[in-house]
């Protein structure tokens, strides 16, 4: 792998940047792999990277039906935080946060992780009680957090309407200074490049159309392009399409696929240098380095695989943003899009063994899995390498919906993203 550096940039400028090495190979697949990952989103690619780096398992393929990162990974609004309520989820997301903090160096790829802080606003007494409880829980878990009053919020975000003259006045907020944003597609590309350097094969534009299961154990996958490819273990990391793969394996998941929309405005001068989220009026916003306001909110309530949603959802989101920031009311929207999110009844992921031996699932991240990308890949890789679930992944078994050990993160962690 050609390492990136300031010196390299200078050197390549002499040849008009025409001689950069390709970021990853475009290989012809082998007949058999130790591990096949279905789904080339951030989580699948991170899994492949850590399998190679931490466990020395390099005979690995990532099979992606479209292009790398083209699913939710490059469609999300890139908010990263770890201030979850319950121990199980707080540990998992904080594990990811620690990896984020060294990720650009580790990958030798600038993922533009910017710890600009995340505010979760409270607009009711109950919001404030929940915020206080969550921040206390976070601190007990060693996660940074503070409860702020409207005056302190105003100092951080001077343009936000923190007055009493709104429909739902801001009563306070939780503040996680280590939270922030990262560049989503760089995360996918960085992990892909890192995995490729260890010899992992990235098979793009290749769809898994069936699973090959013998005597209750998976032995390979059937693809639309290369027929059957054999595998010792298979990890399915396909987000909104997880139900489709589960159906191939003959079991059901407690997951429903919904459209989740996001939008960006025209680029404007720097005006917002943090992330603002509100569960109650339901919207969140940050500003990208290009200057666009990056805006999102909730899912469309009906099931959908179409990567697009309905207009009323956009309208509600904009109402919330303009209520918080009257100054944004004349800014025009530039683009709007949707992803397919895999929502779980307890708003927590599934990282789990399945009824089929050697088939593992990592899904159910729903509206909020981008922040977990490195942590999710890290614990899933350990599970695929050893065949036993990593201790941090164990509570997220798919069988919790039968034994009742749910991890209820609904609303408790601010907006669901």
């Amino acid at each position: 792998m050609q390492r990136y550096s300031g010196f390299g940039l200078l050197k390549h400028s002499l040849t008009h940047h025409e001689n950069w090495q390709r970021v990853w190979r475009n290989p012809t697949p082998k007949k058999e792999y130790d591990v096949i990952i279905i789904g080339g989103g951030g989580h699948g690619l991170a899994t492949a990277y850590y399998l190679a780096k931490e466990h020395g398992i390099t005979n690995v393929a990532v099979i992606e039906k479209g292009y790398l990162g083209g699913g939710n990974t490059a469609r999300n609004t890139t908010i990263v935080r770890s201030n979850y309520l319950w121990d199980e989820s707080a540990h998992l997301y904080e594990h990811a946060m620690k990896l984020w903090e060294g990720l650009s160096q580790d990958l030798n790829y600038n993922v533009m992780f910017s710890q600009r802080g995340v505010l979760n606003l409270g607009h009711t007494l109950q919001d404030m009680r929940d915020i206080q409880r969550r921040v206390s829980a976070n601190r007990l878990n060693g996660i940074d957090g503070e409860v702020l009053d409207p005056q302190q919020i105003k100092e951080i975000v001077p343009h936000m309407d923190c007055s009493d003259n709104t429909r739902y006045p801001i009563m306070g907020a939780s503040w996680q200074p280590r939270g922030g944003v990262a560049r989503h597609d760089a995360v996918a590309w960085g992990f892909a490049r890192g995995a490729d350097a260890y010899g992992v094969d990235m098979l793009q534009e290749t769809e898994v159309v069936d699973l090959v299961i013998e005597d209750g154990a998976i032995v390979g996958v059937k693809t639309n392009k290369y027929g059957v490819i054999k595998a010792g273990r298979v990890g399915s990391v396909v987000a909104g399409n997880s139900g489709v793969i589960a159906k191939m394996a003959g079991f059901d998941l407690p997951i429903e696929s919904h459209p989740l929309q996001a939008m960006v405005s025209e680029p404007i001068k720097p005006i917002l240098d943090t992330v603002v989220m509100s569960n109650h009026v339901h919207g969140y916003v940050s500003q990208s380095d290009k200057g666009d306001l990056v805006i999102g909110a909730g899912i469309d309530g009906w099931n959908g695989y179409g990567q697009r949603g309905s207009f009323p959802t956009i309208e509600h989101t904009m109402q919330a943003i303009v209520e918080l920031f009257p100054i944004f009311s004349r800014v025009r929207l530039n683009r709007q899009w949707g992803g397919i999110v895999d929502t779980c009844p307890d708003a927590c992921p599934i990282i789990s063994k399945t009824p089929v031996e050697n088939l593992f699932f990592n899904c159910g991240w729903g509206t909020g899995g981008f922040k977990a990308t490195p942590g999710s890949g890290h614990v899933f890789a350990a599970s695929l390498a050893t065949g036993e679930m990593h201790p941090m992944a164990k509570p997220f078994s798919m069988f919790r919906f039968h034994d009742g050990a749910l991890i209820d993160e609904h609303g408790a962690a601010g907006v669901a993203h």
Partner: protein
Amino acid sequence: MFYIYCPHCGEHREEEEFHAKGQAHIVRPIDPAACDDKAWGEYLFFRKNPRGLHHELWIHAAGCRKFFNMTRDTVTYEIKEIYKIGEQPSVVAGNKLAGNK
């Protein structure tokens, strides 16, 4: 954006007046206490999530506030039919991936 026919009001209205309420035709266990953990968990949490035809429950929340059923394609988003509670769908999936278990 859906333009939805409410079978109770007898009119088409915009999506905003309605709420999707998830999978239709979920049968409550006749004797809940007799369910084992698996059956009870499945009743509570496991829903059909087809890529294709889906039979779902909707409510005309900002209208007559009554429930009704809809068959809809979850990929094209096309509404195939609207039918009342207690009725059965006439448009049903034929192939494996389209959803009937």
